[in-house]
């Protein structure tokens, strides 16, 4: 049983910039969160807020035009009795150490199951790739492991799937294959980048329940990247909310849904329908739209859309992450005693 | 947005019409800024901008050919057969410096072993280069009579900056006049290519079905011939007794007959993609005709694409004309093009003994290279996400 208070991953003040022809795009400008062993962390935000880039940073797989300019990702690796802190962002992306972590310690599944398997190789080939790389097994053992991992993700006829080409499988089946590949080496951390977004609702539910079962079984940690708060409610223990490249709030699941502090989190929650809503309540929308990453607002990035905007403060100074509780951090001037005397209105 | 409002005015009442107008101008501003963005991205590509200047210079050169060239490009001169280039010099044989560049005169001997005329610089004769000298009368741009030429030397001196050909004709003058044909055959060919290619591609993609199948099959058939061979066969089939101008236009047509196929395919792909998009359904729903949908909605959307393909097709046309004329199947003497000039340099022996006869090729390379860089620059500016 994993110790739920033991930290497995720390992301500290992460800044990642992309150099494009039309200037520098500041994709991440301060991402902070921690994840404990055996926990499921949801990373939530609108599209373009930097969720996927965060995942790429943790895997140390930032596209060639991107650069981690500041901050760190620290992975606490178990070895024998104790743990050893590995600073992933300090490892060269193509180094042996990094490759030993990828797939083996930290595995990842992607958004588009239709394109995340190489169309030219069988499922078995791609599954064996991971197994042979990270586990010291002979051919027959490797094959047995592969078929077993397909069986574990509840694919019927695992032997047939093993010999199939990706184009012969449906989207849901392919995502199961991706999960099987990811879990074949028993990683301690799984990053799931919107794994159900591209699937239809029924398949989505099946995949989610599969992932929950597998988490119960293996007690691995999961970072679940999504824009769907319903999925978060179903899957996660902890939630980090991102807005324009910054984590604006991190806390446990209950606090997120019942007493969120950041105005953005509050607005997000007001924008989803609930079964216990009063009849006739209009769903609220967040005013304005996500600004273009090349024209980021000054001060607090959310201030132009914020209902609790404080003139003279929010547009001038960038808020820092404030710990308001043992397990609750918020990046908002409303909770900064030194900046503002009037606390925000609670919902 | 503006696409939809464009089809609606007849259906809206008075007060709304004003709104539509406002939308329209907003749409125009959007269009403007799009082209402005493309322009800005293009300017940032230094290679493409340089190529544009080179091309403008070349076209200016061929437009003002009569003024720029010192001699009549058809005038043969048996005293100076295959003379090497006369380089402008500043320092004479005695080592004295001259501010005004000059060229030497020529002495000619017969090489009795090879039976060939040998020309040497005669350092005792010096002819200073002069600007705006009087020479053969001509009409500039076909309008303004003049007899001034950009540069020249006093009689009996000669100035063959790039040497002469086997009939003693000034190569520089011939290259400039040859450029008239070589640099325009591509433009005309490409205009026809755009016309055939976009019309056929649009028809094929928009109507689909059997029309599409027939057109695509025809394109495949044309593409299964080696282009040079088919061009040559068509060129050979031209009657021999036609005028230079007719021949020039027929060659342009032949070049475009094959060039349109790839453009048609790409336009078809674009149209197929647009057909699936919302705005064309909206236009159909608003009762717009096929012709209107194609002309108002689809062609403008494919325009930037067509421009890129066209620019990148011009080099192929110039090279094809050069190759055909080199083979003696394209432009025929006495008309000159860079290809016919290169006919003089068909063997290694000539290239080693008279390397300046390859100079027309340098002009081909520079213009083709410039068009390639220009096309690349436009493509990157129009679609920054393409490779």
């Amino acid at each position, binding site marked *: 049983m994993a110790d739920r208070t033991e930290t497995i991953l720390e992301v500290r003040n992460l800044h990642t910039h992309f150099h494009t022809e039309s200037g520098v795009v500041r994709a991440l400008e301060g991402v902070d969160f921690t994840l404990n062993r055996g926990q499921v962390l949801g990373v939530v935000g609108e599209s373009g807020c930097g969720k996927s880039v965060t995942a790429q940073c943790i895997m140390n797989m930032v596209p060639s035009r991107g650069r981690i300019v500041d901050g760190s990702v620290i992975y606490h690796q178990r070895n024998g009795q104790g743990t050893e802190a590995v600073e992933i962002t300090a490892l060269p992306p193509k180094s042996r150490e990094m490759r030993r972590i990828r797939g083996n310690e930290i595995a990842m599944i992607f958004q588009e199951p239709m394109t995340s398997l190489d169309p030219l190789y069988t499922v078995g080939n791609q599954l064996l790739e991971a197994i042979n790389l990270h586990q010291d097994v002979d051919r027959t053992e490797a094959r047995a492991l592969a078929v077993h991992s397909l069986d574990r993700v509840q694919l019927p006829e695992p032997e047939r799937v093993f010999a199939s080409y990706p184009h012969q499988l449906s989207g849901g089946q392919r995502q199961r294959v991706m999960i099987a590949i990811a879990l074949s080496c028993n990683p301690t951390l799984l990053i799931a980048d919107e794994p159900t977004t591209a699937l239809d609702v029924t398949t989505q539910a099946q995949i989610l329940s599969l992932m929950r079962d597998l988490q119960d079984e293996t007690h691995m940690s999961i970072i679940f990247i999504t824009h769907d708060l319903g999925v978060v409610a179903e899957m996660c223990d902890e939630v980090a909310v991102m807005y324009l490249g910054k984590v604006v709030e991190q806390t446990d699941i209950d606090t997120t849904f019942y007493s969120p502090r950041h105005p953005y989190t509050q607005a997000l929650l007001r924008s989803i329908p609930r079964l216990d809503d009063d009849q006739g309540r209009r769903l609220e929308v967040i005013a304005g739209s996500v600004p273009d990453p090349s024209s980021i607002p000054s001060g607090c990035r959310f201030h132009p859309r914020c209902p609790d905007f404080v003139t003279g403060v929010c547009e001038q100074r960038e808020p820092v992450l404030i710990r308001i509780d043992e397990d609750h951090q918020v990046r908002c001037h409303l909770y900064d005693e030194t900046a503002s005397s009037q606390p925000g209105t609670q919902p | 947005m503006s696409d939809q409002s464009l089809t609606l005015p007849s259906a809206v009442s008075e007060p709304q019409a004003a709104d539509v107008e406002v939308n329209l101008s907003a749409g125009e501003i959007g269009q403007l800024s799009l082209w402005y963005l493309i322009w800005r991205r293009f300017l940032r590509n230094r290679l493409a901008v340089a190529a544009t200047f080179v091309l403008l210079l070349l076209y200016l050169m061929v437009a003002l050919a009569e003024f720029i060239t010192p001699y009549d490009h058809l005038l043969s001169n048996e005293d100076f057969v295959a003379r090497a280039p006369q380089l402008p010099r500043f320092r004479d044989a005695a080592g004295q410096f001259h501010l005004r560049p000059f060229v030497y005169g020529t002495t000619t001997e017969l090489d009795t072993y090879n039976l060939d005329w040998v020309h040497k610089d005669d350092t005792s004769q010096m002819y200073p280069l002069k600007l705006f000298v009087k020479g053969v009368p001509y009409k500039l741009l076909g309008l303004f009579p003049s007899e001034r030429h950009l540069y020249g030397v006093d009689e009996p001196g000669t100035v063959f900056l790039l040497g002469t050909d086997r009939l003693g004709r000034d190569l520089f003058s011939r290259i400039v006049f040859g450029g008239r044909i070589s640099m325009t055959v591509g433009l005309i060919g490409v205009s026809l290519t755009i016309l055939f290619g976009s019309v056929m591609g649009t028809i094929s993609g928009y109507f689909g079905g059997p029309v599409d199948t027939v057109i695509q099959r025809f394109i495949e058939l044309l593409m299964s011939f080696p282009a040079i061979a088919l061009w040559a*066969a068509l060129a050979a089939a031209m009657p021999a007794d036609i005028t230079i101008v007719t021949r020039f236009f027929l060659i342009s047509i032949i070049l475009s007959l094959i060039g349109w196929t790839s453009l048609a395919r790409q336009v078809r792909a674009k149209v197929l993609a647009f057909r699936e998009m919302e705005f064309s359904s909206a236009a159909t729903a608003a009762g717009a005709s096929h012709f209107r949908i194609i002309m108002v909605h689809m062609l403008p959307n494919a325009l930037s694409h067509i421009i890129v393909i066209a620019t990148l097709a011009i080099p192929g046309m110039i090279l094809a004309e050069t190759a055909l004329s080199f083979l003696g199947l394209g432009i025929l003497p006495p008309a000159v093009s860079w290809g016919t000039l290169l006919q003089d340099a068909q063997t290694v022996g000539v290239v080693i003994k008279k390397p300046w006869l390859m100079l027309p090729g340098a002009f081909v390379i520079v213009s083709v290279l410039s068009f390639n860089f220009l096309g690349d620059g436009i493509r990157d500016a129009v679609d920054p996400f393409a490779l």
Partner: protein
Amino acid sequence: MLAFIARRLVYMISTLVLISFVGFLIINLPPGSYIDVFQAQRQLQGTHTAEAELEALKRRYGLDKPVPVQYWIWVRGFVRGDFGRSFEFNREVSELIWERLGFTVAIATGSLLFIWLVAIPIGIYTATHQYKLGDNVATIVGMAGLSIPDFMLALVLMVVIQRLFGFTVGGLFSREYVDAPWSLAKVIDLVKHLWVPIVVVGTSGTAGLMRIMRGNLLDILNMQYVQAARARGLREATVVVKHAVRNAIHPLIMLLGMSLPTIISGSLIVSIVLGLPTTGPLYFNALRQQDMYLAGTFLMFLAFMLVLGNFLADILLGLIDPRIRYE
């Protein structure tokens, strides 16, 4: 797979029929009838044509019959290996064509290999080192390669080789082997001469393929399955070679059929400069002399070769791409 091949085969045959129409059209395109040109040519050569010979020609090609019948007579001749007669050489076209086509195929195949061996590695290098110095150099050199007319490149290379190695290039055989019967020594001599046209024709094709390979690979490197392979912990070289490059090469195999015409075009024109006994010089000469049965047949056979090449490329693609194989 068999069904796939059968489908492509039917398609190929229908294309061949269409090509023969074009070939026939080309033969009949020049103004003046075949008989007139034939007579004029003979008079130029100083020989008089007997009335009986003309009659025989008319009967052979059915020149007094309607056009569809003429076409049928011409096509029917193929089965017997009869493609018409060249009056320039006063020989059967079939006698002239085979050896020359063989050399053309040899040069085209060699050039194709050369292009792939050179262009693919450079394409891979430039895509994996985007915007680095090597990439920029390759782009500019490639662009220059695209802009030089084939025949000029041939001339310049010939001069360079002559200067560097001190031997004269041109032709496919040394003087003593030209008319000699085939032997091992003759083959070795052929190979010694063959590389010049192969390099020349290949050089201009390399630039284009290199750029396409670079573009394809850049696209593929952004695909999710490449990221997924990387996320499994595979070595970067394995990711690039096993997953990215193989996927990027597939569209190139489809392009193979389309690049063949360019290669053949290049070899035709380079042959003239290098004085090679291939299709090129004979074909262009036939066109200039309006020797249309020879020219038309050559053109048709060149197209046949291309279609056959396309067919083979299709099958190759089917063999290596499961999506097509299992269609």
